[in-house]
């Protein structure tokens, strides 16, 4: 099996987010980037398949700050090839990213064969609708299934996998998917593995990141960002402090103010 994991870099929200001067983007100097959580799950799911049934895992991502770290880590975990797609992109248009990735897939495999799975993260913090996967599938003319939490080959049938998709309310659907296909991974079957730092360092030393340049062709009009801003404070929580009696008295007062108590 041949799995291509398309990782996506997103702003690290542990760090304070700052808006750029133009008011339409994040300040790239001030923020840090990291692989999106569901991208990490996509990679983990690919590695699980590699360990269980044998698969060649390729990881690719569109250039972004700190992408190298993510790719070295993927390489240390067991990806055979890690590829960076330049140049870096501005804006948040999934359709443009998808078209770049489509070109990349074509470049890599011509038309993907029946042993090929293309994984993306199901969502990302800057792609909450999860547009990337379906858009890419559409452009490649391949089937797509998203919000997948488990995937394994159908025994005895070449070119088919079983995917489990999660629905709300605790429901799960089991699908049979014919390959090649694009799969949006929501969560891998197990948490991301820890890769010892020595292995990452070894991957860095071998310097094995490949690079390919694909210039995006901007077609059509996407949604444009008019303004990006930190949510305005609309109300504040009141912390009630003091001994239980003071707290109780204050609570009663609030209930009365709001008409809950007469």
């Amino acid at each position, binding site marked *: 099996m041949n799995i291509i994991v398309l990782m996506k870099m997103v702003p690290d929200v*542990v760090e*304070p987010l700052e808006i750029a001067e133009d008011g339409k983007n994040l300040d790239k100097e001030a923020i840090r980037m990291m692989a999106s959580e569901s991208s990490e799950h996509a990679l983990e799911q690919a590695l699980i398949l590699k360990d269980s049934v044998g698969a060649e895992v390729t990881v690719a991502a569109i250039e972004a700050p700190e992408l190298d770290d993510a790719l070295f880590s993927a390489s240390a975990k067991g990806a055979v090839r890690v590829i960076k797609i330049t140049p870096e992109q501005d804006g948040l248009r999934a359709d443009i990213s998808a078209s770049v990735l489509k070109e990349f897939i074509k470049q890599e495999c011509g038309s993907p064969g029946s042993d090929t799975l293309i994984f993306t993260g199901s969502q990302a913090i800057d792609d909450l609708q999860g547009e990337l996967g379906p858009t890419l599938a559409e452009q490649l003319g391949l089937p797509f299934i998203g919000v997948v939490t488990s995937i394994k080959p159908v025994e005895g049938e070449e070119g088919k996998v079983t995917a489990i998709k999660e629905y709300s309310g605790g429901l799960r659907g089991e699908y049979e998917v014919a390959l090649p296909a694009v799969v949006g991974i929501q969560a891998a079957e197990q948490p991301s593995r*820890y890769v010892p*730092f*020595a292995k990452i360092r070894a991957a860095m030393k071998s310097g094995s990141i490949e690079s390919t340049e694909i210039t995006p062709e901007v077609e059509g009009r996407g949604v444009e960002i008019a303004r990006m801003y930190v949510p305005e404070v609309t109300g504040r929580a009141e912390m009630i402090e003091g001994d239980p009696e003071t707290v109780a008295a204050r609570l009663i007062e609030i209930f009365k103010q709001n008409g809950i108590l007469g």
Partner: protein
Amino acid sequence: MEEPVRQTFWNVPHWAEIAQYAGGGLAVIIFLYGLWRHIKRWKSGRSEKLEGTFGHRLTLLVKYGLFQGRLSNDAQSLLMHLFIFWGMAVLALATAIATVDWDVAHLLFDYQFLKGNFYLVYELGADLFGLFLVIGLCIAVIRRYIQRPEKLATENPPTFKIDSGALLLMLLGIAITGFIVEALRLASMKPDWAEWAFIGYALSGLFGAMSIDSIEASHFVFWSAHAVLSFVFIAAIPYSKAFHMVSSAVSVYTGNNIPPGRVSEDNEEGVVGITDFTWRQLIQFDGCTWCGRCQDVCPAHAAGWRLSPKNVVLKLNAESGRSAGSSKPENKSDNGGTPEGLGDVVSAEELWGCTTCAACENECPVFIQQPRALIDMRRHLVIEGELGDTLGEVLMKITRYGNSFGQSDRARSKWTQGLDFKLKDARKEAVEYLWFVGDYASYDARVQEVSRAVARLFHAAGLDFGILNESEKGTGNDIRRVGEEGLFDMLREKNLKALSKAKYKKIVTTDPHTYNALKNDYARDMDGVEVVHYTEVLEQLVSERKLEPSRPLNAKVTFHDPCYLGRYNGVYASPRKVLRALGAEVAEMPRTREHSFCCGAGGGRIWMEDSPDTKERPADSRIREAAAVSGVQVLAVACPKDLVMFQDAAKTTGFEDKIAVKDIAQLFLETLNQEVKDEQ
């Protein structure tokens, strides 16, 4: 009175004398073969340089080998062991002297030195030490079969299962047959000095009614039994626990007598197969006496987890014996082969149970470094990715953010925002004390309060100090002990780089774990910079009258010695002196100073889940112990992890109302004038 003289081989026919030498020779050959196999086994380990001088090692050997100094906190076992060891040693020496006297001096030169007064003292001494031996053996039998402390139970004997029992029986047999032989000889010869051999003499009365013939016949039977037992014992030494006479001595001799807790420096990949341990470690495993003192003080064992340091060492020793005994060619991982892993020998669950508190190592009579061996094996688990989910997550956070909290490294000095004075940035201006704050003291909300208390104290004393702000990363003390040597190296490099750009004279830390890493793990790159704990600085500030507690605490306080401050680095006095200076009465818990009981957080345990079959968490056990000290109101701590662990434990055990858990800095602040306290 006829001059007393030794008649070795009295009543022994010449053929039996020859047979005795033949038997003795055979026993020695069997012994030497076994010894050679042990030495071969030791040599299969990796290389390691021995530290320290010959003189120093000899001192160790006398103090801890010949006199078993580490047993001094357990009178019963010290007495038992000294009696058995010295009893056997003196009797063996006596036998050797008699043999030389008879078959060298007498045979070749027709001269005997075992005569006259010297011989009388010899007889007296031999009987006295024989008595010691019997007493020692009786104590041993009582301990092992009547008292039966848990620590003596051995799950995984590396030699034969009934080892201890068989050895005790054999030694008792040797001692008793020896006395009977002597008694029969005295009963027959009736020398007028017989009382000197007071035990043999007393026993000889039992045979008074027997005829000379039957005395002599019995004598020969017992003499033969005594000889056979002795030879069997000698031959059995390398194949039984008795070999610890040799291996423990070598382990003590090669023990560096350094403070506990040293880790392997040059084995990043850790241990895969048994021969990946160094020769010194293999000797240590072989030197284990099965005494179980390590297990008795182990917090993981007390908590009911699977780890027992004793069992780990015994299993490793058994594995070492198996691997040396197998005919397969040696295959070390570093020369390309695939050695058999230790996964079946020591489980991951056992390895992850260790808090690296080093109580075991501190207690071990023969200087075995249990935590080091466990960490060596953990390194391999890390390489294989066999770490629990919670630990893996924390390590990822540390890799990315340089702290175990997974918070932005830019938020590292956010805790200083509650202060009304600014802390110097040691990267920008020279300071006398560089305060290395550490992860917990920087990011944990409860400990941040303590950090601010320390800052206020330093500020009030006019101490010239500063911090590294976001250039500081976790030192990786516990990352190293988790076995993630690569990540530790990365953290060390980053911190050393930050330190090299700062201007300072000394480093002060609030976290004993940080203290240990900087003082020991970073030492070779630190140009001898002095690293001190804040309690040491506070002690100095008090003695220089730069800080004067004006409102004494008037409370009874007990102090918990943090593992990494006490056992690892020997700082016991400063925290207590500071507490006393605050007007506190310091009462000690039963487990105090180097016998302090770990809170359970060290060695990365704070990032792991406790096993569901936990009997009592170490911190709970400790808070109970503190609360049981009569009249104690406060458990004083000097380690951020202790504060967190014990405050939690006080809540879960319901001791919260009985005992307060406070850091020394917080207590200190309470004693100062209101101005300092209110300075916010």
